[in-house]
């Protein structure tokens, strides 16, 4: 005779049951709302981080050391993280390149921020951020990364804060042993973020460093680059900096038939052509506003008090994407038109899309 032993309930369902019970005890709040009071960085919480330290790099740039929450999954060098910071009481999301080498999941991460004129968040982080402050985080993202097997010959072209993702790569040690040339532009020697560290790396023979101080030497041109690095087209290249520089590099590499060797990271959208504008309806929020053809839907929504998802505000992170139920929007970066008829629900990036006629967003 066989007897069957009652199987113990699966731990997963027991856990679910307990969570439901806890939620019934705390309704209308969630147990998380109470746990957040004491352990905002715990596993299972919304991903957050605590600022551990802020140290200046240059007169207008600083590195922010952040202890991420328990659910942080780590990053690959060159990736960025979306950061939600409360500036003057208002939650602002921005994307910043990670400048620390990948380490254990519980180790602090760093971002390095350059205060740009009128930059709400960058100025706040560089000048006012206080250790102990809780910030909101997302998992690391971005495909501006090194391949699993780093190439033997590498060119890095950076300008200003464009050095930040590259610094993450250099610190990771992934390029150790490779023939690395870094061409970096900054107004002066004192403005070079990580200047001392880069010069140390160069002195140690880890890379060839070409500093271009634009105040004395002028803007870096393609001719300059060709003269400085004659074999640049033979090198796997990662470039990060202002749109003008990246556009020129892309054109040059593409013309030479080496487009696949160039990897770029853009920090800001290039606005080419404005749409024509129109009324924007945020269906579920019950808000309709008139927006002109140069105002991103994100800003139009925020100005009307709609709680808009947002991220980098430059069209790279897709944190602001919303379904366009119907209507037309124009991409502010390249003028391309996206249209949707009812049922389509095309996802559009609200931070770089403007109304090109009436549009109805599912939000």
């Amino acid at each position, binding site marked *: 005779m066989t007897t069957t032993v009652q199987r113990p309930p699966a731990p997963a369902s027991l856990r679910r049951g307990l969570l439901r019970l806890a939620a019934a005890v705390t309704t*209308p709040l969630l147990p998380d709302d109470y746990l957040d009071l004491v352990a905002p960085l715990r596993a299972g919480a919304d991903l957050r981080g605590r600022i551990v330290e802020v140290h200046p790099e240059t007169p207008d740039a600083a590195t922010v050391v952040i202890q991420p929450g328990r659910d942080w999954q780590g990053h690959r060098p060159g990736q960025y993280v979306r950061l939600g910071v409360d500036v003057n009481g208002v939650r602002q999301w921005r994307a910043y390149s990670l400048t620390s080498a990948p380490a254990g999941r519980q180790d602090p991460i760093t971002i390095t921020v350059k205060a740009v004129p009128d930059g709400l968040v960058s100025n706040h982080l560089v000048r006012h951020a206080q250790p102990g402050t809780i910030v909101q985080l997302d998992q690391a993202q971005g495909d501006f990364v090194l391949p699993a097997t780093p190439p033997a010959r590498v060119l890095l072209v950076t300008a200003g804060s464009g050095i930040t993702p590259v610094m993450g790569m250099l610190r990771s040690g992934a390029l150790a042993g490779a023939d690395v040339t870094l061409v970096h532009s900054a107004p002066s020697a004192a403005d070079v973020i990580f200047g001392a560290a880069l010069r140390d790396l160069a002195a140690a023979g880890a890379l060839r460093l070409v500093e271009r101080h634009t105040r004395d030497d002028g803007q870096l041109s393609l001719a300059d680059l060709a003269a400085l690095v004659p074999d640049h087209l033979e090198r796997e290249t990662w470039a990060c900096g202002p749109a003008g520089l990246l556009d020129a590099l892309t054109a040059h590499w593409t013309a030479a038939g080496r487009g696949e060797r160039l990897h770029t990271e853009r920090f800001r959208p290039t606005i080419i052509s404005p749409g024509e504008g129109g009324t924007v309806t945020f269906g579920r929020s019950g808000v309709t506003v008139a927006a002109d053809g140069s105002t991103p839907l994100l800003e139009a929504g925020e100005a009307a*008090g709609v*709680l808009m998802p947002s991220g980098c505000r430059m069209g790279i992170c897709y944190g602001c994407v919303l379904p366009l139920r119907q209507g037309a929007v124009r991409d502010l970066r390249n003028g391309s038109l996206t249209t949707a008829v009812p049922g389509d629900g095309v996802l559009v990036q609200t931070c770089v899309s403007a109304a090109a006629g009436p549009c109805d967003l599912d939000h």
Partner: protein
Amino acid sequence: MTVMQRKPVNPIAHLTAEDIEVIGKELDAIRDRVLADLGERDARYIRRLIRTQRRLELGSRAVLLFSLFPPAWIIGTAGLSIAKILENMEIGHNILHGQWDWMRDPKIHSTTWEWDHVSPAEQWKHSHNELHHRYTNVIGKDNDLGYGIMRVDEDQRWHPLHLGQPLWNLVNACFFEYGIAAYDLELGRNLKKGRHRDPAFRARARAVGRKIRRQVLKDYVLHPLLSGPSFLSTLAATFTANLVRNLWSHSVIMCGHFPEGVETFEKTSIEGETRGEWYLRQMLGSANISGSRLLHIMSGNLSHQIEHHLFPDLPSNRYREVVPEVRALFDRYGLKYTTGSLPRQVFSAWKKVIRLSLPNRRPRDHASNRSAPALRASGA
């Protein structure tokens, strides 16, 4: 209180149309000034308040686990009552108004907030924000005038059922949150018109049912069960805390629009209303409660009902600060700023509920004044 347009002395007769628009512009300017100044300090205020409320609620409920001991019962019940009042008034009501949406914090946002109340936030926002605040004190439009069960204005038609309204009001006060849920559902009207089969109504009724079940399960089953041997005394404690919260919020809210001195308006008076006229209606249709800082916080700053009705989406901590400017404006334009202590205003509101349970003494000749021009100035 009589519809303003039918009063022998119209309180705005001395204002010209230009005056009214200037008043509107001045109020807009106050609003813009506060909006431009919102920042860190305000965010700290609401976050600290929410933190305090949660700690108080958690602490009180923990104490109530031992509610068999009378001191624990008293402390726990008092703490929970205060926590529930804070949650509904200064936190819930104001967040659901969108007063804190500017922070863009999804955890403190009118679209995501749910409150410790049997009326689901979504339904309350509709009946309160969209209807009451838009049609404030317009007879036949603003159901807050007596909540559809009472007569609080001479110009509301008397019905024999109103004889019982002092009792209805008392019962409503004790179970105020259920009264609000029924009111947000427009239960009476929907049942009377046979709309109980209407799918939209049924969906909303189901949502209320779910919310009631969750609230009851928490307050009257789970927390008492967690208290073990203190089951019954914890049950009594949570019931008492809900009762205290209901009585308190009912009293505060009665003081907002029912006391003597508050004006009501004809339905036709709001046709084509300008922004200035809307502001004026809010100024004359609301009453404040004077008192300490604590009273203001416990009332959810509805003690600044006038300022709240002028600027329903400004953060409540700012009402106190704009009072001098708002009052100066009332004075400058010879308008009555209705305010009084809590006992005085509660007494005044109850007096009216009792007085108007009987028909008017002198029937009015409504026809003679029917065409009275609304909120518009005499010279307009």
